Each structure stands twice: as C-alpha cells, then as structure tokens.
C-alpha cells in the first residue's frame, strides 16, 4: 500500500497518530474538494468525478463486457448451446431464478422480477470483487518507482492524475450512498410489486391484515410503516458496513508493522511483526472473498423476499 505517499500528506505526528486517518482515507471516497475530473455544477449539484464515481463506471463497463454482451451474442445464435463462460453464467442465473426468485415471488411472476434481482446480484458481486483488487496501489507503485513521480510535500496540491487516483478506496459498495441507491430501487420495487398484483390502494390496505381485534391495529400500522423504511435502511447499512469493515480489518492488520516499528524505534521489530501480520492479512482477505459472495447473495435474497412479501400477503 502506498503508505509513504499518503503519510506525506498528513503533516508530522508519529505513526500512531497517522494510522487511523490513513485507514479511513483508504476506504472512503476521494476528497470532494479535489475530485478526479472537475465538471461544472448543474442546478447546484456538483457533477465532478470522484474516485467512487470512476469505480462505478469501471464496474458498469466490466459487467457489460462480461455478462450483458456475451448473453446477447449467445441469444442471437440459431440453436444456442452454452459453452465455457456461458455455462457459468447460465448456472448462476438458473440458481438465482430457481432458488431465490421463484420460491419467494411465486411461479406466476418469476419472469417479471427475475431481471432486477439478477441485475442486483451481478452488479453487487462485481462491485464487491473489484474492491478487493489492488489495481490503484499497483498503479501508484508503478508511478513512483518506474516513472519516478513522487507525491508532493503536504500542503501542495497534487496535479498528477495517477497520483490523484490513489486517494480514496476502490470499493464502490462500501460507500453507503451507493448502497442507499440500490436499496431505494428495492423500496420502489416493493411498492410497484404490491400495486401491480393487488392494486394501488389494496397494497397499502394489506399492511394491516383483516380479522384482528381493533386495538392491535393501533400498534400494528405504525410498526408496519416504520418497518417499510427500516428494511431498505438495513439493506444499505448491511452491505456498506460489511464491505468497509473487511477492508478496515485488512488495513489495520497491515498497519501493525508500522505501529510496532515506530513504538520500538527499530526496523527489526517491524519486519518480525510482518511475519505475523502478512499471513493474517492474507487469511482475512480469503475471508473477504467469502463475504463478497455472501453479501451479494444476501442483498439479492432479501430484496426477493421483500418483493415476494408484497405480492403474496398470506405469509
């Protein structure tokens, strides 16, 4: 990790003071005051490209090239028979359609709701996975050691584009604004699902099932309305916190080397801590791969469950 380049940005202080700031800097978005590409404000909204916006575009292009375009080419064939990569995509799509969408939504509506659930799954999977790849750190190392461009001293603004790419984290779904956007889609999808199956007013009447004693309704309806907002909120926080938390854990363990070397003022301590710290960081990165898959699956599953609950109200 290009800690040297980043530590020169925080003026002075021992390693212990800088570590916390470094870690947060490495998982959050790039600074909104110094965006990657400065774009004009439209109607008061700043359209400049920050690191996470750039990563959103990269993930979108990646999903389009790996999933969307091969599927379209495959469907245009005469008698399609899946081979190789298409086989993998078909297995994944079949798994999601048959074990996530169909049990929750019912066989009548599978074709209506399978596309959005599949989009959620592939986008979140790719976005989570790209966050694990240290592309920009390798680019930064290339910049520093091969092209020999150093980070400027603190206080001076950095004009090099590749150096400015280093600020901020690469995990898009770690930003709770991105996951809030995805959860908003689920929020409206639930309302659309209920309105299409039962009619607009009946969807709201289904919040309070008939046939209960009337005092229950006084408690039930506020709880249901709060639940309507809490469910997407939990979706956003679950995905964002899982992604950020994993990266913070890996970075913190890797920072042990610097912390111990600074505490004992000797490089030998730092190197011997590396014997413990690097295998543990590798193990947690392995765990992160599992978390990446699981979190994509969970977001998809819960969205399907909520949509299914709006369609079949009988629980």
């Amino acid at each position: 990790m290009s800690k040297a380049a980043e530590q020169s940005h925080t003026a002075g202080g021992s390693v212990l003071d800088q570590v916390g700031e470094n870690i947060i800097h490495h998982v959050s978005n790039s600074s909104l005051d110094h965006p990657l590409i400065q774009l004009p404000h439209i109607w008061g909204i700043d359209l400049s490209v920050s690191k996470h916006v750039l990563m959103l575009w990269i993930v979108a292009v990646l999903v389009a090239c790996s999933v969307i375009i091969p599927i379209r080419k495959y469907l245009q064939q005469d008698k399609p028979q899946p081979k190789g990569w298409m086989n993998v995509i078909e297995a994944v799509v079949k798994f999601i359609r048959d074990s996530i969408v169909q049990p929750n939504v019912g066989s009548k509506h599978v074709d209506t709701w399978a596309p959005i659930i599949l989009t959620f799954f592939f986008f979140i999977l790719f976005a989570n996975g790209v966050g694990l790849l240290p592309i920009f750190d390798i680019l930064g190392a290339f910049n520093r050691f091969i092209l020999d461009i150093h980070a400027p001293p603190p206080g001076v603004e950095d004009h090099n584009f590749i150096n400015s790419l280093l600020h901020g984290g690469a995990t898009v779904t770690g930003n709770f604004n991105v996951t809030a956007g995805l959860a908003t889609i689920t929020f409206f999808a639930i309302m659309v699902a209920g309105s299409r199956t039962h009619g607009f007013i009946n969807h709201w009447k289904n919040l309070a099932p008939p046939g209960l004693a009337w005092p229950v309704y006084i408690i039930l309806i506020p709880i249901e309305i709060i639940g309507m907002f809490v469910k997407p909120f939990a979706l956003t926080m679950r995905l964002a916190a899982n992604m950020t938390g994993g990266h913070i854990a890996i970075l913190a363990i890797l920072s042990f080397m610097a912390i111990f070397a600074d505490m004992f003022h000797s490089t030998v301590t730092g190197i011997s801590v590396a014997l413990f710290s690097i295998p543990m960081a590798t193990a947690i990165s392995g765990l992160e791969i599992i978390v990446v898959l699981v979190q994509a699956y969970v977001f998809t599953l819960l969205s399907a469950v909520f949509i299914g609950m709006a369609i079949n109200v009988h629980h």
Partner: protein
Amino acid sequence: MENLHLFGVGLGLGLIVIGAGLGIGRLAAAAAEGIARQPEASDKITGAVNLPLFLLEGVAILGEVFALLIVLMK
C-alpha cells in the same frame, strides 16, 4: 477521563459479539439437529437457516458501524 467513550465502545463491541455468537450458535445447533433427524430435508433446512443467519449478522455489523462512529466522531 476524556477517553471514556472508548471504554464504552470496547464494552459494547464485546456485548455485540456475545449476542451474535449466541444467536448464530443456536441457529446452527437447531439446523444440525434438524438435519440429523431427517437427512432428506437437508436442503430445505439449510435454505430456512440462511435468511435468519444473515439478518443476525447484519444486526451485528450494524452495531459495529455505530461503534466505529462513536470512536471517530468522539
């Protein structure tokens, strides 16, 4: 005395881990017993355990987020 909030955060995180561990442990025990009684239902039991498992994990992670917020926002 000015770092008392860190003490609270540490305590809180420990409690979160205890809660999540107990809850998920009970889920796993019930699932294992169910599969032991009826090995044919193993797929359905796993499917039924999946959802509450991740809801519980989500609650634990939410708690972790708020703990981190307390540490960072002082």
